[in-house]
């Protein structure tokens, strides 16, 4: 009898259910992220604007308090779809920067250290791997986008009364759906760049480059070729255009109509998915 | 030719400490390493690489001073004409062949093309990589990468060679050739400072050893000298003779004998004694009395035993 047959016994204990196995990845990834003081500080900075908005909503419902300071209530912005649209655009920029900070550390270390084979030699699929890594970003970005957005909506609803909520419940939907679209776009860009660029810093620069330089290049294309389709390369603007439809603000989207913007976003997501699954595989190609 | 002053022939560390934040690298190390092959021995994290990096100026001491043949590591222009360092890092500049690697880094010395080319080929020849010199390093085996690093360290003909785990990944034949090369370099009067985990090889090649544990130097010197200083552990001496039982009865005349164990084949005896000198004198007398002694050999004055006695306990305790 071979020695290992006498000594080796396979694991026979309880296994994590298959459906929740992907959640093992965010557990460790988040554990590695939060010791970074810079990340914690940046995450805190992401809440400044929502906090300001909450104060603003509170003040706009306490006009007597404002009168003490001789502030005219009429000068205050109305809390409506436009208010929440602006909130979403500001937090979208913060989410982009947060993605550039967190995203590169997700897949690139596994690729650089040849660790993918270790994941996939276990009952763990490529889809679960991508879902696990993506859930880290989805969680963090939700924390700075739609979750505080919904809290703001609830604060407004509690102060403005049930009738306001009944008339404006679609704003809450727009906040959640709009933010989730942007979160998915950012997550896919981050994972794709992180999978293709082993050096974390370069991956981070590339994520920023895709968002910032893509926007700049799109606008340059519009100017040079006298077209408006270049805006499709500006993924943030595409999302804003889509949001303008969700928030029922037709004038807010520039250059594109919502369908064109949705197509551009879908194309970007498909390209990122293709890039991601081209790189995340349980084998290495040795050249 | 007049020999160089003592200071210029030693690698000297004076009360050197190095901390990585709150983590100890090495602490209060004072050493004077003469020419010849010196081995740094110790478990992982004992401070071998830190000590080598300190000698070559890749890191600076938190406290104390380092002088290599009288030159401070803060003076790279002088130091690196004297020192060659083969590090433990298995990384190379991207896209270079073995020859380009050696040649390009020789050009950093400011030397002309012809001289660099000649030195590069000589170094490659010394590590027997001529056939693979024009292949990309990325395609080299582990052993070839070790050898090209070694070639890079000795290409400029340094007086001090610092080699971190140079025998790792080498096959037995190349290992033997490399050990022979170290001996050759040491015989030329150079310092060859080697770190290794393979204790029997350290035993084979070293003129002196430096034993490190947890950042401290626990012993230094020639291996026999170090062994005789370890009084906690009795010396073990192996004797092959025709009448081991009779010999065993005689050796207990000495109160320094701790144990005598007969070999199972009935042809020998292992003696443990606290005073090897007295035991050898007794053995001479016994030999004259008619017991035929075939061979006498110390059984534990090698690096392995010294390592076990000095560091083994700490290792086990970790």
């Amino acid at each position: 009898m071979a020695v290992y047959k006498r000594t080796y016994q396979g694991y026979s204990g309880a296994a994590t259910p298959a459906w929740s196995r992907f959640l093992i990845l965010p557990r460790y990834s988040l554990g590695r992220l939060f010791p970074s003081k810079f990340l914690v500080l940046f995450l805190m900075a992401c809440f400044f604007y929502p906090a300001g908005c909450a104060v603003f909503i509170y003040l706009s419902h306490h006009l007597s308090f404002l009168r003490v300071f001789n502030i005219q209530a009429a000068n205050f912005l109305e809390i409506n779809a436009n208010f929440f649209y602006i909130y979403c655009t500001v937090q979208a920029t913060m989410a982009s920067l947060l993605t550039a900070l967190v995203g590169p550390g997700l897949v690139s270390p596994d690729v650089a250290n040849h660790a993918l084979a270790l994941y996939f030699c276990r009952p763990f699929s490529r889809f679960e791997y991508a879902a696990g890594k993506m859930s880290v970003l989805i969680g963090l970005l939700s924390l700075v986008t739609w979750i505080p957005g919904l809290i703001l909506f609830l604060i407004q609803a509690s102060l403005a009364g049930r009738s306001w909520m009944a008339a404006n419940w679609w704003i809450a939907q727009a906040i959640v759906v709009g933010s989730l679209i942007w979160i998915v776009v950012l997550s896919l860009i981050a994972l794709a760049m992180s999978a293709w660029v082993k050096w974390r810093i370069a991956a981070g620069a590339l994520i920023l480059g895709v968002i910032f330089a893509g926007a700049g290049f799109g606008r340059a294309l519009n100017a040079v070729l006298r077209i408006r389709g270049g805006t499709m390369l500006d993924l943030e603007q595409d999302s804003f255009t889509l949001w303008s439809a969700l928030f029922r603000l037709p004038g807010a989207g520039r250059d594109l109509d919502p369908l064109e913007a949705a197509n551009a976003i879908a194309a970007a997501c498909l390209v990122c998915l293709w890039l991601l699954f081209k790189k995340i595989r349980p084998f290495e190609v040795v050249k | 030719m007049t020999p160089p002053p003592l200071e210029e022939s030693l690698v000297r560390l004076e009360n050197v400490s190095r901390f990585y934040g709150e983590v100890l690298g090495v602490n209060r190390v004072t050493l004077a390493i003469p020419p010849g092959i010196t081995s740094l021995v110790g478990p992982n994290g004992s401070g071998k690489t830190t000590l080598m990096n300190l000698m070559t100026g890749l890191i600076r001491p938190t406290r104390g001073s380092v002088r290599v043949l009288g030159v401070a590591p803060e003076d790279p222009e002088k130091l690196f004409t004297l020192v060659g360092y083969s590090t433990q890092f298995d990384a190379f500049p991207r896209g270079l062949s073995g020859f380009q690697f050696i040649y390009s880094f020789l050009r950093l010395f400011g030397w002309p093309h012809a001289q660099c080319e000649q030195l590069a080929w000589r170094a490659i020849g010394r590590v027997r990589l001529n056939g693979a010199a024009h292949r990309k390093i990325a395609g080299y085996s582990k052993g070839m990468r070790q050898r090209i690093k070694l070639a890079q360290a000795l290409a400029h003909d340094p007086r001090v060679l610092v080699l971190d785990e140079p025998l790792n990944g080498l096959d037995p034949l190349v290992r033997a050739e490399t050990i022979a090369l170290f001996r050759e370099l040491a015989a030329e009067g150079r310092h060859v400072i080697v770190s290794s985990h393979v204790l029997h090889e350290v035993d084979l090649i070293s003129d002196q050893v430096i034993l490190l544990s947890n950042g401290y130097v626990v012993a230094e010197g020639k291996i026999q000298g170090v062994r005789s200083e370890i009084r906690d552990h009795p010396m073990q001496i192996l004797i092959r003779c025709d009448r081991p039982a009779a010999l065993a009865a005689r050796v207990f005349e000495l109160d320094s004998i701790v144990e005598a164990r007969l070999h199972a084949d009935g042809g020998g005896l292992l003696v443990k004694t606290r005073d090897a000198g007295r035991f050898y004198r007794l053995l001479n007398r016994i030999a004259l009395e008619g017991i035929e002694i075939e061979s006498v050999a110390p059984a534990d004055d090698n690096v392995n035993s010294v390592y076990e006695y000095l560091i083994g306990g700490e290792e086990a305790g970790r």
Partner: protein
Amino acid sequence: MIRRYWAQMRAVIRLEMKKTFLSRRGLWVYLIALAPVLMFAGHDLSMMRTREERRAIAAAHPVPAGALLAVQPGMTREEVTARLGQPNLDARQIRFAGGRVRRELLSYTDGQSRYVFGFADGQLQSITVRPEETLAQDRVIFATVFQFFYLRLAIFFGCVGIFTNLFRGELIEKSLHYYLLAPMRREVLLAGKYAAGLIAAAAIFTSSAALQLWLLSMPYDSSLPGREIAAYLGVAALACLGYGSVFLAAGLFFRNPLLPAAGVLVWESANPFLPSALKKISVIYYLQSLCPVAAPPDREINPLLALLISSSEPASTVFAVAGLFAVAAAVLVLAARRARLLEINYGTE
């Protein structure tokens, strides 16, 4: 001594050039530099096609320029077609961002400009004239693209990639110690690496700028003045010099140079809002001052790009060039001090 330093510097440059030029990893830098070239090539192709189309249409539907100018709002469709003949395009519907609006559009060309007449309820309501593009217009567009895209984004990110890689990239790849084990002053190493990065970046980005300028003036009979071309090429090279020094230092001082790079991006963008003294501690201030054509401000800028785009009061050419060299020199001196103290501790990378 100086000869040896120079020989050592050349050796460093030779080694670095192998890594910086034509490496697969640096391919994206070429792409980012090539993007505006492709854009201007596309512009040339589309312009030549439009010209040919208009001339072909004008030949098939000849319309005198005087007759086109005589058309006035309020005229009926029949009156317009009676004066100008059959249009080359008769569109019944057009879609607008707000939904579908039923309109009639008639299009004519005199071979150079395109005239679009919009009718509602049978009466001419709008006249849109799209004249042939001119070099003067394209000069302004080039100035905008050069300042807002090329300098601030393409060269900026290109320099982040090239210059942070010089030290930080080698620390991450664990190959920097080979340099530090050579009998060479760290200052010489730094100068060699910087020179290699500068040569690579300047070659890539000035070549791209030269190609863009050539493509810009290709469809026209006249070309841009040599002085203007030289100014743009000089500004591109000086941008590499300035940003290069900043990102080389960032690679030495920071484990993650992306954070200072983002900081520099914000600092450079906030330039016009800074007090005069602080403005001068930036690269973009001097670069913009040296640009031969002022870029018009973008009124429709989105919040994200608004963060990136800024304009500032120009400095004199001598002051701007001297200022850029001074900023680069100051940053390199700091970087050299850091390089002297650099230790190899790859474990923490």
